[in-house]
């Protein structure tokens, strides 16, 4: 019965481990309960979004100008996936915790860590199972996309895929938090408290520190909620993607450090500190990646193509000194409409925020001024509109403003439709299918061919 072949221990196959992890995640109630809860949540959001979109469309169908403001990304996709985001934040940690928590509670982890897999392999396979879990719970949201297409709605592939990618990264981030929480906690209940403290605490951080400056602004950047916003605005930012990848890798590395039960607590703490240091360094490096792609169909994050081409040729450093407080709505306008676009279009742009509230009190005339220095020339403006700022910049650079291109205008996609019938799917059909799938998986397995007759006890 026993083989002396030591080779068996050297390279254990990954497939049975992955199959076991997926069986574990699908055997638990957490996944199915979440799926059943996501159905009405996403369905209601989708129906509401379609209803509001249709109301706006009825006026827009008469006016091409109004129609241009109707984007399915803003009107349908973001609100529908917004409810999915809430579900992932509040419920997905339970699914991820199940992947490891159950093994800790039943003692199976002590068997698992003795199997011929590296600890990193064990954790990465668990992360794959978490990914599989996320794919399953995203089925209702994905079916909403299909429903929108069936209703005749427009879907632009780049911005839709970008949004899905953002949610996938967010799901992995929450899953990583859940896995780490399960590893450092003694029980699944404690792990759930730890994971929710991070995800909900992140919301609180975002709400309370929104619009603040200085350290508060820096802390607000740490909020998980912030990670999805660029994706919702149709922006694929290399720095953000790298940053999220670093955090997911960091959470995975910390899980690997805390997984083996045989290592000393002191060793684990020392390794964790080193790991956190590496994460901070890597995040710093990721923040240097400024490249981003505007994948929105209406190119809301970019100037016109002609302007972008011309701005890309302006090689000298542009220094913009803004005398506005960061919470000032004018600054928020300026950042969205001009600064963010300039940073993407020009090779060397530096923005200096010089206008705190105390400065506004001491020099009220200077407050609101925005100074542009290009090479050895400078100019001042108070405008936050690109229509005034771009000509100013071209004048500073001695460049001729480009001729506006034709056919670049976003047409908008107004649609009058009713999603009431889709409620039947989200409140009836899909939950029924999920319940059936759950029952099918819970059903006693088919007897393996090895089973013979005869009981011994």
């Amino acid at each position, binding site marked *: 019965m026993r083989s002396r072949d030591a080779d068996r*221990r050297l390279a254990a*196959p990954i497939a049975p481990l992955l199959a076991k992890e997926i069986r574990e995640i699908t055997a638990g109630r957490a996944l199915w309960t979440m799926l059943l809860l996501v159905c009405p949540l996403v369905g209601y959001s989708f129906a509401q979004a379609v209803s509001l979109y249709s109301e706006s469309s009825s006026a827009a169908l008469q006016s091409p100008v109004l129609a241009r403001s109707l984007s399915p990304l803003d009107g349908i996709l973001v609100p529908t996936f917004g409810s999915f985001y809430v579900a992932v934040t509040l419920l997905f940690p339970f699914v991820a915790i199940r992947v490891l928590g159950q093994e800790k509670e*039943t003692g199976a982890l002590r068997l698992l860590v003795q199997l*011929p897999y590296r600890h990193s392999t064990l954790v990465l396979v668990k992360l794959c199972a978490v990914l599989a879990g996320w794919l399953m719970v995203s089925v209702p949201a994905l079916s909403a996309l299909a429903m929108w297409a069936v209703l005749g709605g427009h879907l632009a592939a780049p911005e839709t895929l970008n949004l899905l990618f953002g949610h996938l990264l967010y799901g992995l981030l929450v899953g990583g938090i859940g896995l780490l929480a399960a590893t450092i906690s003694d029980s699944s209940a404690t792990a759930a408290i730890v994971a929710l403290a991070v995800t909900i605490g992140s919301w609180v951080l975002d709400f309370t520190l929104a619009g603040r400056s200085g350290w508060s602004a820096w802390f607000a950047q740490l909020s998980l909620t912030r990670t999805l916003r660029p994706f919702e605005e149709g922006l694929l930012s290399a720095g953000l993607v790298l940053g999220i990848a670093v955090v997911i890798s960091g959470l995975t590395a910390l899980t690997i450090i805390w997984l083996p039960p*045989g290592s*000393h607590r002191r060793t684990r703490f020392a390794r964790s500190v080193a790991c956190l240091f590496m994460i901070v360094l890597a995040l710093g490096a990721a923040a240097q990646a400024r490249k981003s792609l505007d994948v929105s169909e209406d190119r809301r994050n970019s100037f016109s193509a002609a302007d972008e081409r011309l701005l890309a040729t302006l090689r000298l450093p542009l220094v913009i000194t803004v005398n506005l407080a960061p919470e000032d709505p004018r600054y928020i306008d300026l950042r969205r409409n001009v600064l963010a676009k300039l940073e993407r279009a020009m090779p060397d742009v530096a923005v200096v925020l010089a206008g705190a509230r105390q400065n506004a009190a001491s020099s009220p005339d200077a407050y609101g001024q925005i100074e542009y220095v290009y090479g050895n020339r400078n100019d001042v403006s108070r405008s936050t509109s690109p229509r005034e700022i771009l000509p100013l910049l071209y004048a500073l650079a001695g460049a001729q403003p480009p001729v506006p291109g034709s056919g670049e205008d976003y047409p908008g996609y107004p649609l009058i439709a009713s999603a009431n019938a889709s409620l039947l799917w989200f409140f009836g059909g899909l939950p029924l299918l999920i319940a059936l799938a759950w029952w099918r998986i819970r059903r006693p397995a088919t007897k393996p061919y090895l089973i013979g007759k005869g009981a*011994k006890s």
Partner: protein
Amino acid sequence: MPAPQPFPDGSVPLLHVANLTKLYGRDELAIERVMFSVQAGEILGIIGPNGAGKTTVLEAIAGLLPVNSGEVFWRGEPLKIADRRNSLFYLPDGVHPYRDQTAWQVLSFVARVFRRSDAEVRATIEALGLQPVLGKRVHELSKGYARRLILSLGLLAPHELLLMDEPFDGFDLRQIREIIGVLRGQTAYGRTLILCIHQLADAERICDRFILLSAGRVRGIGGLADLRAQTGLATGSLEDIFLALT
């Protein structure tokens, strides 16, 4: 650290445990300077009452519990914690792995990990009488079948040394005899076993040698004859010897 001494027949111990000490917290001593050796092919019983430190010894050897001091040697060479799972396999007590999966799924998972053939899996299932419950989920198994399932995982592991914590827990007398036969069969294939047993009568039936553990300390080591000689109880049972030494 004391190097492992050869056995009287000149053979190097398969496993040598030197001065293992484990403290829980700052001053709660679980085991203190535990030292013993295991010969290839033997069944060594670590016996003692509940709380004697038996499980702590096994988990420390398996590398699943950090110790304060002490070392483990494999064939005379120090065995690093990271390498222990390559040499030995530990079956903990009270484990119900993957409660929502069927016994067959758990068994076939371990069999596939260790690349066991169908014939080997079938032989293990038959040896432990698991056929009637293969389709049942682990949480539905009786205590006896759950224990058989855990034992089957150990038998499927290809390691030379198996550490088992309370392998007879949950079995009646007839079943214990049956399992003893299975474990004895394992030594015939050259496998070595270290068993933690708190029932002295069971230990006496299966073990070649004994380590008597009480309050975290080794009180006696040897075969039944050695221990009888050591205590002067010429016809004493293991129970009498244990009481005399502790």
